[in-house]
């Protein structure tokens, strides 16, 4: 991708994502297109494993921009997300200045300016993404924002409204070209409406059978088509059982890959039982699947 000036179409976005191994439906491709063209963040919400994080990685592969990832967690703060002063190096600088006697000749203000100069600034992901220099803008992935707290969201909103960050001691950093921003949420908590409104929004669903088959095929090696089909069908069934953690695409891929490694030509209940742990991670969920009847699910999958 080089021509920034020419607007893309939804179909082109879909193709480009596919070339980089991501199979998007029209809804997601539209949201991506709009995010790129309108230079607004893209907010992807959905259950774990539906392919949200992968969108950002794919965009980085496609555009050639650097992937800058901020994994959110409870209590994340500016120091970890935006920037921090490197105190130990500042201290060292101060000591050296004193030891060499420079400090005597230098007034306090000059020394302080030295201490708060860019070389002692540690840039964390958000500042890195804003202060990225020339060239292809990076892809900023703010992953699982629902884990962070309200204050952090408020900060994000401010930063994303201007694509700028102020460091009181240094001044304002502004992105020459805004980074491509992807925010994901597993929706353990609702993201603030104001932040949502700043973004293009897409609710990511589990893929339908055919798309899931295509995804698994693309993301695994040397797995017979038959197995892939059956895995996708069985996983589709698992998702209707109301499990505590329904399997995502990642689990389908893992399952198909391990069946492939076992040299299986088709799924059967013995194999499914032996490998259930790769697709259903929680013991309670495994029990629930067995209660429902793994045999029945496998049988249905065989007919897929």
């Amino acid at each position: 991708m080089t021509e920034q000036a020419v607007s893309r179409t939804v179909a082109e976005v879909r193709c480009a994502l596919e070339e980089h191994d991501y199979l998007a439906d029209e809804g997601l491709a539209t949201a991506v297109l709009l995010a790129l063209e309108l230079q607004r963040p893209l907010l992807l919400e959905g259950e774990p494993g539906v392919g949200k994080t992968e969108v950002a990685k794919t965009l980085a592969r496609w555009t050639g921009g650097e992937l800058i990832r901020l994994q959110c967690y409870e209590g994340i703060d500016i120091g970890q997300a935006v920037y921090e002063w490197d105190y130990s190096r500042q201290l060292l600088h101060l000591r050296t200045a004193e030891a060499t006697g420079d400090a005597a000749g230098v007034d306090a203000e000059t020394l302080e300016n030295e201490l708060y100069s860019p070389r002692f600034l540690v840039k964390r992901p958000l500042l890195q993404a804003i202060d990225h220099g020339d060239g292809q803008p990076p892809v900023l992935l703010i992953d699982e924002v629902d884990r962070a707290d309200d204050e952090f969201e408020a900060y994000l909103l401010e930063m994303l409204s201007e694509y700028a960050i102020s460091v009181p001691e240094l001044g304002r950093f502004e992105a020459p070209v805004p980074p491509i921003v992807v925010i994901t949420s597993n929706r353990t908590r609702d993201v603030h409406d104001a932040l949502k409104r700043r973004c293009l929004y897409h609710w990511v669903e589990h893929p339908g059978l055919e798309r899931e088959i295509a995804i698994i095929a693309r993301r695994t090696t040397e797995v017979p088509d038959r197995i892939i089909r059956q895995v996708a069908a069985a996983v589709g069934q698992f998702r209707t059982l109301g499990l505590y953690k329904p399997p995502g695409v990642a689990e389908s891929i893992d399952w198909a890959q391990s069946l492939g490694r076992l040299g299986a030509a088709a799924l059967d209940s013995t194999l499914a039982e032996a490998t259930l742990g790769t697709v259903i991670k929680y013991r309670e969920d495994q029990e629930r699947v067995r209660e429902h009847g793994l045999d029945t699910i496998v049988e249905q999958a065989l007919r897929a």
Partner: protein
Amino acid sequence: MTETEGALVESRHLDHMVVGFVAALRDAGLTVPVGSTIVFRRSLELVGVDRSLAVYWAGRATLVTCPEDLDVFDAVFDAYWQHRDQPGEQPEPEIEHLTIALDDGADDGEGGEVADEPDVVLRWSPAEVLREKDFALCSNDELEEAQRLMMRMRFATRLRPSHRHEPARHDRGRDDLRRTVREALRTEGEPMRRATTVKRQQPRRLVLLLDVSGSMESYARALLRFIHAAVVARRRVEAFALGTRLTRLTKELSSHDPDQAFRQATGAVVDWSGGTRLGAVLTDFNDQWGVRGMARGAVVVVLSDGWDRGDPGVLGEQMARLHRVAHRVVWVNPLKSTPGYAPLAGGMAAALPHVDEFIEGHNLASLEQLAAVVAA
């Protein structure tokens, strides 16, 4: 910029379509700020309006911010743009969606603003006997009939002014916004004027917490049907199951098909008819959702017999926390009507001081009362 006469007309036409559609979404209950309308308008320039599916996805990306609103969006979209192309994998929404979603608006009459909605409207079929019958004594057929009646019940709470969230800083969008509004007004943009000057009102959020522990067995299923009716009939409803753990059911219950919703919801609750940890689970609710924001200013309804194996002090404490942030706390106890029942059992006694309204919930008539209390 030089625009040909034709392009100008086109652009005006687009403005009309956009503001008209957004007005329809608002009438159906969605909150759509002007800023989003403008982003939608710009998006249409990018994706074009020749294919309705392109318009549909552009609308979803710019006007909707949670999956719970998708049903309403789909229904309004279909009504407004007539027929949408078949979207790839998703089944076409059923036509009932449309009737239900637009029903509210239509009843309000001309210029139907949500504000004109009556406090509560209940429509009943003449099955008076069933209304009084205890759910625990109902046959399956009767429960089915009861559930059909619930689906016809209508919920509404008093409206409160909504605070529209504005981005903290001014950005380029601001200027565009002013310009676009001015332009729209010049193009005799009646809908736009309405969209910007009418003060939006939001109903209070309704949060329903259903105890699904073993002691509630005879009632939990019927009450879940009731909750489903509330979730689909009204916007801003959240539903949770309280058992040995907390399960959010809003999404599962958002399907308009009662059986499907019921299946999804009971499927999601892994501890249906299991033990009770009412105090502990309510702590989870408060920590993860309620006190964080969901219960603030909301009408919170707990549907439970108040039976808790844990320390009643915890339940009392958590009810107090909830009561501090909620607008109103209602406790629905199906055992209340049982002759000789006095709410002295540990949990219930500890909770009562923090409850605004304590009502029964063992039959349709009492749920009718609940709807009225919720609306008050």
